[in-house]
């Protein structure tokens, strides 16, 4: 398809849009193939641009749109305001995830001390189970605590 362009196209469009209606321009618009196409399409679209009274009445009320925009603005403000909290949460979770292997590694060294400090205390407070199983109970408690910390961090990350 050969592309055609008329230098007077913009002038014709301007004249049709309510500008000065020069007789020469209008004559040109009727004779020129490009401009007559502009004329045809423009008139066709302009006729279809009018909405019916019912359509105008059915448009949403300005107050409704205004309130919706207020809600959106408030939401955006809240998102911006809570950004530091969410950022700190994410950093804390990431730091926790990085520190966990190191903590497990260090706990091996701390384990004898922990048993020294806690086992006599647990053994003296009451013998609910055989003393041999105290070490296992402590291990289970620590594992459970770490698991719960991990779970809560994951939940916080999801929330963020």
């Amino acid at each position, binding site marked *: 398809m050969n592309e055609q362009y008329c230098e007077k196209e913009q002038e014709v469009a301007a004249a049709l849009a309510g500008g000065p209606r020069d007789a020469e321009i209008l004559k040109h618009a009727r004779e020129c193939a490009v401009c007559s196409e502009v004329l*045809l399409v423009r008139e066709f679209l302009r006729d279809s641009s009018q*909405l019916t009274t019912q359509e105008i009445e059915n*448009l949403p009320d300005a107050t409704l749109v205004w309130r919706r*925009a*207020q809600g959106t603005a408030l939401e955006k*403000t809240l998102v911006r305001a809570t950004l530091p909290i969410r950022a700190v949460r994410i950093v804390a979770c990431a730091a926790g995830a990085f520190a966990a292997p190191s903590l497990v590694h260090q706990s091996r060294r701390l384990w004898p001390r922990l048993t020294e400090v806690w086992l006599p205390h647990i053994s003296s407070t009451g013998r609910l189970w055989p003393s041999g199983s105290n070490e296992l109970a402590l291990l289970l408690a620590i594992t459970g605590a770490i698991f719960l910390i991990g779970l809560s961090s994951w939940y916080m990350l999801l929330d963020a």
Partner: protein
Amino acid sequence: MPDESASLIAKGKLSMDATAFRAFYEETSPPLFAYLLRASGERALAEDLLQDSYCRFLCAKLVPEDARHRRSYLFRIASNLMRDQWRNKKGKDEVPLSNSFPDTAIAAHDPDLNIQVQEALQQLKVRERQLLWLAYVEEASHKEIADSIGLRAASVRTLLFRARHKLAGIIGKNLRDLDPRMDV
């Protein structure tokens, strides 16, 4: 109290006050709705896009002061939203906007024109409808159209010519079908 503080937070964040917005809305909503309705072809979608456009406009940080630029900015937002919608539909393999043109989409005053407009626009792509509407109804410059649709200004002239030629062909054919003696 929470409602009051909330409205105070939101108040400072909108680009216009309520009175100015009402005047702007009453002036621009009918042409914007006509554009969205004719270009998208779906009434419900056009209504949603209309509300979203104004929400984005009000929440924007830098809104032009000049009335013409402000209107152009609003149409740009609407065009972008329509393009996003079209891309989403395309991505989900749903019916593209250009093919979903229900009978209720066009409600012009003249029933003959109604049918003609419906048939003619149905054969154009969404972008072609946008281009033609912005150029010949909104009388936007090529640069404004380029900004609104996300094209280069240099491409607008070519694409506009093709779209116009296509629509002129469709209108001419429709008129010839109505009256075979007519030479368009």
